[in-house]
């Protein structure tokens, strides 16, 4: 029997069994007639006929004596008059040791255990407790009898894989409590009482290692929320250098299909320097999670020396699994993230894809016959998306420890058009935008983040100005390439041509990264700094060439040298050799070293800011500070 938060259940309801009967069925929406009282968003179970199959459902609307419930399963086989039992509790996640390394569905059912018990298929109405109840956890108390505690305070710790898992006072307990007993250091099951708390009225509350928390409610028992200052190193160069993500920040990755959203998230989940990674696969292909599940146990996290799976939780509600559970998969994931943040860890939550969740909302809204908003999405889409991203953040707890949740969500815009409602709603809510483009992925330029469209409000591994300068170069190079399409190579001035080559060079060896290469696939902070320094040097070096063919071949040679450099082990002799090769080769063409009087192509690549705003390519963002200006203003300035 799960333990329900006292604040959320009414004793009257629990003691009285409340039921209703099915009145109508429309796909996964059932209308239930009830007699007593019901609670908005409470969970009910619809029983198929006289069978033992009970389908989990959530109340989403109440009208008179009828409630509409969305069923988290296929509804086929339900009939009029079938019994629905209400539980009195909201949709909740179970929190306690043993979450790490697990693979849950959207309702927090452990999928591996379900498979062991029920076989290949996900049969309806089969639920299992999320945490292993038979496992023993060696508990070490950190509080003494008589101490005063409140929600979120640590009572003791258990080791959970690579981390120290704090056993905390359940978040739903309000006010101050006195510890009457605390268990001795020993191994316990999660359902064993490890402490007893006494409230001010004198009532006792036995505490176990697990408790429930309603997933749609944010955990807010920290001391203060901090600014997301520190960068979260993803080891992806284009992100960390140009469009960084901060610990406690939010970002989104929209892109058409085939642009590599999921691969980018997989790489992030592998290489991001966070303590805990939570992957919420929401309405996407099952095969993608399978890859993660199969790979992660084999991959070793260099920071801990343990398998990556030990720091990962996967919540998978794939596209063919019930639609209603998509929403809960996102919330279940973020609730678990909050639980680990509360212990002072840096958590990254990767949600793929929030569009599927929005679509689930749209389906539900349509069935409820609500007045549709844009593209039939419900009018409350924006506020719900914003609320979700606001659950990210870097916070300081009452005990002084600092934890963070970084949320990265992919968006799958219909037709690859970023003007659609979900992308726009998400853009308002996030601090960084990694726009994936089909042109880049078609040209096999991975990661296909478009440097001319993306932006970030955070500071990454390099100075903001240096990054802005590089984006300007890319922008100018893009302009030149567009111009060349019209006037041809012959009609392009040498300066512009070199500038174009430099832009392409930077793009191809720095921004592009081979995810399948063990070394190039993940670039550490130090290496990025080093590598970016070399880049700056090459780009700032004034070079002269006899003709365009020579320029092209020099840069293509530089490119292949640099690719070798990227693929060589950090600080190895090989790397040093490649680095000096690059410098030497560059020096041959450096202006100072060439005595012969070829024409000089030393025009700095960016004269002034006016230049770039005047012929601004695409909807390029404000160049002054790297902080994106508001969209509408931007649109004006292009006109």
């Amino acid at each position, binding site marked *: 029997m799960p333990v329900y938060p006292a604040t959320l259940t009414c004793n009257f309801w629990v003691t009285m069994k409340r039921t209703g009967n099915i*009145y*109508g*069925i*429309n*796909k996964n929406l059932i209308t239930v007639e009830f007699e007593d009282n019901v609670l908005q968003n409470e969970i009910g179970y619809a029983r198929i006929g006289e069978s033992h199959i009970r389908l989990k459902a959530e109340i989403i609307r109440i009208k008179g004596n009828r409630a509409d419930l969305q069923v988290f399963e296929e*509804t*086929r086989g*339900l*009939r*009029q008059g079938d019994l629905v039992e209400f539980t009195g509790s909201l949709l909740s996640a179970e929190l306690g040791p043993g979450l790490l390394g697990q*693979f849950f569905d959207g309702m927090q059912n452990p*999928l*591996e255990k*379900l*498979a062991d018990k029920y*076989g*290949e*298929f*996900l*049969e*309806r109405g089969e639920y299992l407790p999320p945490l292993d109840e038979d496992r023993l956890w060696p508990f070490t108390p950190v509080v003494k009898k008589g101490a005063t505690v409140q929600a979120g305070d640590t009572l003791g710790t258990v080791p959970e894989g690579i981390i120290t898992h704090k056993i905390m006072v359940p978040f739903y307990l309000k006010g101050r409590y006195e510890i009457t007993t605390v268990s001795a250091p020993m191994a316990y099951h999660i359902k064993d009482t490890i402490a007893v708390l006494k409230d001010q009225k004198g009532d006792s509350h036995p505490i176990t290692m697990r408790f429930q928390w309603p997933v749609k409610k944010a955990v807010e028992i920290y001391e203060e929320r901090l600014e997301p200052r520190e960068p979260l190193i993803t080891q992806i160069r284009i992100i960390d250098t140009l469009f960084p993500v901060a610990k406690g920040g939010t970002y989104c990755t929209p892109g*058409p*299909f*085939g642009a590599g959203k999921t691969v980018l998230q997989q790489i992030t989940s592998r290489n991001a320097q966070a303590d805990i990674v939570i992957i919420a696969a929401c*309405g996407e*292909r*099952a*095969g993608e*999670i*399978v*890859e993660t*599940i*199969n790979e992660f146990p084999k991959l070793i996290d260099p920071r801990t020396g343990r398998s990556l799976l030990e720091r990962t939780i996967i919540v*998978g509600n*794939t*596209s*063919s*699994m019930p*639609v209603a559970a998509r929403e809960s998969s996102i919330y279940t994931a973020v609730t678990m993230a909050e639980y680990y943040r509360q212990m002072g860890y840096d958590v990254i939550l990767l949600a793929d894809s929030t569009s599927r969740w929005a*679509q689930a909302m749209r*389906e539900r809204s*349509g069935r409820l*016959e609500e007045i*549709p908003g844009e*593209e*039939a*999405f419900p009018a409350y889409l924006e506020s719900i998306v914003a609320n979700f991203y606001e659950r990210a953040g870097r916070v300081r707890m009452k005990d002084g420890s600092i934890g963070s949740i970084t949320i990265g969500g992919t968006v799958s815009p*219909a*037709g*690859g*058009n970023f003007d659609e409602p979900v992308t726009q709603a998400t853009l308002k809510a996030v601090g960084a935008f990694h726009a994936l483009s089909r042109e880049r992925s*078609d040209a*096999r330029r991975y990661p296909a983040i478009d440097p001319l469209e993306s932006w970030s409000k955070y500071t990454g591994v390099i100075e903001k100005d240096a990054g802005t300068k590089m984006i300007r170069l890319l922008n100018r190079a893009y302009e030149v390439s567009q111009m060349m*399409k*019209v006037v*041809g*190579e*012959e009609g392009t001035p040498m300066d512009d041509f070199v500038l174009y080559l430099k832009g392409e060079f930077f793009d191809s060896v720095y921004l592009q990264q081979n995810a399948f290469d063990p070394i190039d696939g993940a670039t550490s902070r130090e290496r990025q700094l080093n590598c970016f320094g070399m880049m700056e040097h090459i780009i700032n070096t004034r070079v002269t060439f006899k003709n365009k*063919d020579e320029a092209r071949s020099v840069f293509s040679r530089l490119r*292949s040298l640099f690719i070798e450099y990227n693929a060589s082990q950090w600080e190895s002799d090989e790397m040093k050799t490649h680095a000096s090769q690059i410098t030497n080769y560059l020096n041959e063409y450096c202006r100072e070293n060439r005595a012969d009087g070829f024409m000089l192509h030393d025009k700095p690549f960016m004269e002034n800011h006016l230049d770039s705003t005047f012929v601004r390519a695409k909807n390029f963002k404000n160049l002054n500070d790297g902080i994106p200006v508001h969209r509408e203003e931007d649109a004006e300035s292009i006109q």
Partner: protein
Amino acid sequence: MLKVYNKIIQISGNVIVLNARNITYGELAVISSREQSSLAEVIRIDGDRIYLQVFAGSSGISTNDEVRFTGAPMRTSFSENLLGRVFNGIGKPRDNGPDLRENPVDIGGPTVNPSKRIVPSRMIHTGIPMIDLFNSLVESQKISIFTTSGEPYNELLVRIAMQAEVDIIVLGGMGLRFDDYLFFRHTLAEQGALNRSVLYVHTAADPTVECLTVPDLCLAVSERFALGGKRVLVLLTDMKNFCDSLKEIAIIMEQVPSNRGYPGDLYSQLACRYEKAVDFKDAGSVTILSVTTMPGNDVTHPVPDNTGYITEGQYYLNNGRIEPFGSLSRLKQLVNKNTREDHRALMDNMVQLYADYQETLEKRSMGFRMSSWDEKLLKYGTAFEAQLMDLSVNIHLFEALDRGWQILADCFAPNETGLKNELVTRFWPGVKK
């Protein structure tokens, strides 16, 4: 205690409404009118009002026709006897064979537990270089051919089916022209593959609603075969018609349309079918190859767009050729590392060069002077198109790889290609090993 109802209170489109009690959601009913009887499925219950979707269409149904509920959802017979047979959209024989009733299985059954899935690892050789070499087809993959009307997509489909090394072919035809249906049937028969095929065919002349059940029937049967250890290839053509049928029903049911009239759950509907592609541990597999025609060759149309997000890649069939750009097999990385060590590098390189060729073409059409490099690219592009892209080319992967090297050698010097030295020394034609 079968109760017969004979008061239909609403008929609109292919949906009829009547008052009844104790009805199960999803169960089948038989509507008997004077001339014929038709199956119908319960698609909505609102108190006593029962909404039924009539498979044969509502035309000719009278308000006092008899409606008898069967109490069971739609099922289809499954056995080895299916092989070599042709059925319509509700599983009735289209050939002159006997009606099959033994061993009924539910259609649209539960989804596979993701933790039981395994990473696909077996490549399906098709003999088409644009597939084998550039975007390998993998067992248990779901992939769609994006094309437009008029392209030879059905021919391509049949060819892949014939050449692919699979045990069973299940063909689902939706809104097929009758000629196309005959073409499929005859080709399979001629090539001696009919006895390992099952065909579920809905032609354009059949009632729309029957189109909706075709993928479900195909996949339910395939899943059973796969559980029995067979490697099944499911061909679905054309999924656009399936989506249009969904749209039709959604509009009749007065659902709010989301995008170009398609229902908001189009993605979920497609996903729960495509996700049936699976590789069972210690048993067979289901691979889905579908055709999606794009109106006006517009990939942003809701049907190809949603499909693209679900399938593991797509092949663009354009002007009778599979395009190297845009075409993508998401699973190719899983298999092309194990074929031959030059596979990946050669694949990337040739596509890159072909992209350069396209740029050169553009330049040339604008009247710019062609450099010597451009000339090389032009030569390369022409050879590439003729020797690899052409759909009539039918060679094994290794031969295709060798041919790729030959084309490169004919057009470029080794260092112009950007291929690694190590590979060049091993594979470049004419270089001493």
